[in-house]
């Protein structure tokens, strides 16, 4: 009966991001969402619970405004949530997030398995899961497509550059999951209504009584520009010929 912790992040929905005039990006109209791969992480935890019993706890480090994110996460199956929140937690970097998670999880939560998404859909640093495992001193298996528990060991299929590795690790352990691992369920109405009634442990910066300096410092941020100067052709025979000549001139195609 494993105790499972699922970590999630409440992120800006990148579909709403627009470049602003000064080459910066405009976040004013951006809505928030539960990071895509974290939905898979929560679903993985809930599916394991359905199979093996035990508990699922959702944990997040977020700004204090992310109350909707807590409800969203709870509507997807976990029985309780830890809302580690402060105004200053808006733009943390992975060193900070993993340190805060490690402190709270090790001090306040009994766990056998921690599940994270492979990366967050906003920053996609893919660091928090592996860093958290090291801080907690537990085995880490990243990029997992398939997961099961057997005789108190984790059996996981993970993606490597060469293909797939099937690995086994003792519990407690941490995994990061790929979106291939499952199809997150759509919360039903009753799930969303029940979410507001589930227990939420509020953890503030005062409670943590520690400092978390950022080690990766943001110097600047600008809209990505992938713009090239495009020479355009129509689709008539002369245009096709002109296009072929332009490509030939680059010398890339071996016409010998």
């Amino acid at each position: 009966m494993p105790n499972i912790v699922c970590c999630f992040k409440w992120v800006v929905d990148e579909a709403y991001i627009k470049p602003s005039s000064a080459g910066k990006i405009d976040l004013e109209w951006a809505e928030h969402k539960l990071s895509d791969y974290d939905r898979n992480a929560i679903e993985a935890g809930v599916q394991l619970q359905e199979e093996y019993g035990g508990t699922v706890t959702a944990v997040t480090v977020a700004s204090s405004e992310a109350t909707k994110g807590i409800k969203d996460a709870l509507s997807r199956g976990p029985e309780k949530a830890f809302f580690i929140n402060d105004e200053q937690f808006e733009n943390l970097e992975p060193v900070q997030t993993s340190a805060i998670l490690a402190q709270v999880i090790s001090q306040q939560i009994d766990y056998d398995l921690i599940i994270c998404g492979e990366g967050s859909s906003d920053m996609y640093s893919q660091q928090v899961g592996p860093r958290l495992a090291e801080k907690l001193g537990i085995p880490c298996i990243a990029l997992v497509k398939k997961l099961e528990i057997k005789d108190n060991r984790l059996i996981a299929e993970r993606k490597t550059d060469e293909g797939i590795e099937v690995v086994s690790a003792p519990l407690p352990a941490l995994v990061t999951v790929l979106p291939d691992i499952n199809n997150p369920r759509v919360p039903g109405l009753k799930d969303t209504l029940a979410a507001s009634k589930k227990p939420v442990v509020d953890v503030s910066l005062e409670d943590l009584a520690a400092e978390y300096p950022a080690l990766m410092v943001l110097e600047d941020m600008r809209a990505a520009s992938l713009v090239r100067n495009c020479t355009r052709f129509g689709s008539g025979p002369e245009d096709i010929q002109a296009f072929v000549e332009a490509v030939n001139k680059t010398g890339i195609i071996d016409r010998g």
Partner: protein
Amino acid sequence: MAGVWIYADRNEQGMELLTVGRGLANQLGKTLTALVAGDDSTAQGFISRGADEVLLLPSLGEGQPLQDYIPLIANEASKADPDIFLIAASLRGKEMAARIAARLDTGLCSECTAINIDDKGKLQMERLMYGGAAVQKVSISSRPQMATIPPRSYEAAEPQSDRQGQVKSLDPPEASGIQVIERKGQEAGSGDITAARVIVCAGRGIEKQEDLAMVRELADTLGAEIACTRPISEEKHWMTEESCIGLSAKEVKPALYIGVGVSGQIQHVVGIREAGVICAINSDENAPIFEAADYGIIGDLYKVVPALIAALKK
């Protein structure tokens, strides 16, 4: 204090890291150390290509995952205290880098797209965020300053005949408790698009699976590999994910890329931004791909592709 360290879990990427590592080491006036798995001749290969020192990672036991090197590498780095530590951003490399950084209590810039030393001797790095919509510029205030470098960001270093260096063999790491039970290879049916010089990419404009034959014919005429955008592999399953180019799929750096019916969503274009020449065929004049391309044909691909094949064959 040691200068620049590099580690790649695959030697081809190690050769690429030698290029950027040597450049940074020269700027700092310090040495370049490479962590390499292999034997003495592998080590000499790295030395001839720019390393001043090679730390040889010992071979692992049967069923030991590469990640077992992590405590070993972190320990050595902790003793040597390098300024900079670069790791190849392979799937495994990204995980190992994060865990090594955690052990060293230092910051890490993931999938760094640009790296240079400023006039204060500090590393300035760039990376993409928000699904490719924005670029972050970061620096790291702790030691070592760590970054993961995507494959093919740099040319492989060339060997020089007169280089000398030291080789030191490291002791085998302890077993971590994680065992590799089985290794399965990749799905068959796709060429390696990350190595291709020329790529023809099929996008949403392709209406039926059978029409991929036309795209393949264009590819064959050009000596190209065929790839696809996410809808083709993820939604329609007409091609495998190994052929998919995009932010959370493959990044490619071909000399020539031709998108056929590719609209040019940012998540895909990010995967081809380093391509030499980008061409696109799309019926929609306002498709975003035409902003990111060098040459664009505006027209119905079902007419253009056959015409193009005919013109190329002449």
